[in-house]
């Protein structure tokens, strides 16, 4: 029996939703001593673990508790990988080290159980949302990051709260499909990497899509329910469970 590999994303951890944080801690324990099969050999968190990120120097209890739980998990054996999302893209090497996690590029190709898997957060696939893509380009620039991180923690918290109010659907006559992935962009990235199986989150539309170029697995966000994708014996399976409120 091969070991199981897990993929999650879009937990949007936030002090105001403690049930989701508890669900993560339960999940980490469950997959460490899996009763239904092999225990986890790796966990990939594909972005937006946190609702917002103001900097690795954030001293809020939530940030510390999550780092402790993740480090305990990774020290028990499994490899832990962390990808940035559009909310928590300022997570840095310091926090990753505290959590015992390795930061992943987006996109990245990993090989598990002999299968190549293309992993992304998913926001870069939504190319029709041009306003957002402009912000993404800006916010990922070293200058913007340095400018933001140079501000006081209080000021960064205020900025994060302002950004939280912004909603992608509120303006500019956007149709709902703008916020889903662009099929041609999915095909482009498949061609570029030569990998047929794509796993991403971001859109909060959990599903398996069998497309001409390959299979696309979309992870779900964690709220009243949690979602995870499990890879075992060469098979991928999308699962959901109730988050105990």
């Amino acid at each position: 029996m091969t070991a199981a590999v897990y993929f999650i994303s879009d937990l949007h951890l936030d002090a105001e939703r403690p049930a989701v944080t508890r669900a993560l801690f339960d999940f980490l324990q469950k997959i460490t001593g899996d009763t239904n099969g092999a225990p986890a050999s790796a966990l990939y968190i594909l972005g937006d673990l946190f609702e917002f990120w103001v900097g690795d120097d954030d001293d809020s209890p939530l940030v510390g508790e999550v780092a402790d739980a993740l480090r305990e998990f990774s020290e028990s054996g499994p490899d832990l990988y962390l990808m940035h999302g559009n909310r928590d893209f300022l997570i840095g090497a310091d926090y990753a080290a505290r959590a015992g996690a390795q930061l992943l590029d987006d996109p990245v190709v990993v090989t598990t159980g002999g299968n190549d898997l293309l992993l992304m957060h998913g926001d870069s696939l939504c190319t029709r949302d041009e306003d957002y893509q402009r912000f993404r380009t800006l916010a990922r620039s070293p200058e913007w990051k340095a400018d933001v991180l140079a501000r006081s923690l209080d000021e960064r918290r205020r900025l994060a709260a302002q950004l939280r109010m912004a909603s992608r659907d509120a303006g500019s006559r956007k149709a709902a499909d703008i916020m889903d992935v662009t099929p041609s962009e999915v095909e482009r990235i498949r061609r570029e990497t030569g990998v047929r199986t794509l796993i991403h989150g971001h859109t909060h539309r959990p599903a398996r899509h069998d497309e001409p170029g390959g299979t696309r697995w979309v992870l779900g966000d964690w709220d009243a329910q949690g979602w995870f994708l499990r890879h075992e014996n060469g098979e991928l399976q999308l699962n959901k469970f109730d988050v105990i409120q």
Partner: protein
Amino acid sequence: MVTLHTTYGPIKIELDAEKAPATVANFLMYVREGFYDGTIFHRVIDNFMIQGGGFDSEMNQKATQDPIENEADNGLKNDFGTIAMARTMDPHSATAQFFINVKDNDFLNHSGKTMQGWGYAVFGRVVEGDDVLEKIRAVPTTSRSGHQDVPTEAVIIESATLDEDSGEVA
């Protein structure tokens, strides 16, 4: 005065056309054309705000008119019971969606003409229906159609009506 007739009761809003002329004109245009009738409060965050006016009860997004200029530099504050325009990260992107603050949200106020500092344009305040706000802010929410904080049971704006005799300069 505009009244939002919601499934939880009426919310009466006094608009400030003097301080937020473009925003009020834009809001009234949507009210008059019946745009808000049948839309929902689709983003409800207790202790923060309730946002609506853009989706129907099936979470289909309605097509809007062009975005408007942000009037957040008008001195009005995002305090409890005020109504402000929702927008994307672009300060000048508000169309139809609005939100009602259910607490004093100082961090949403204008602090400078930068992307981070523009803030959210307040254009009126609730003068009747605080009890309705209290009920709506407390409804259970879930994630739906790619959105978080969506009420489990739709909170519908059955109609938005304009009281022409309110003496407003609108």
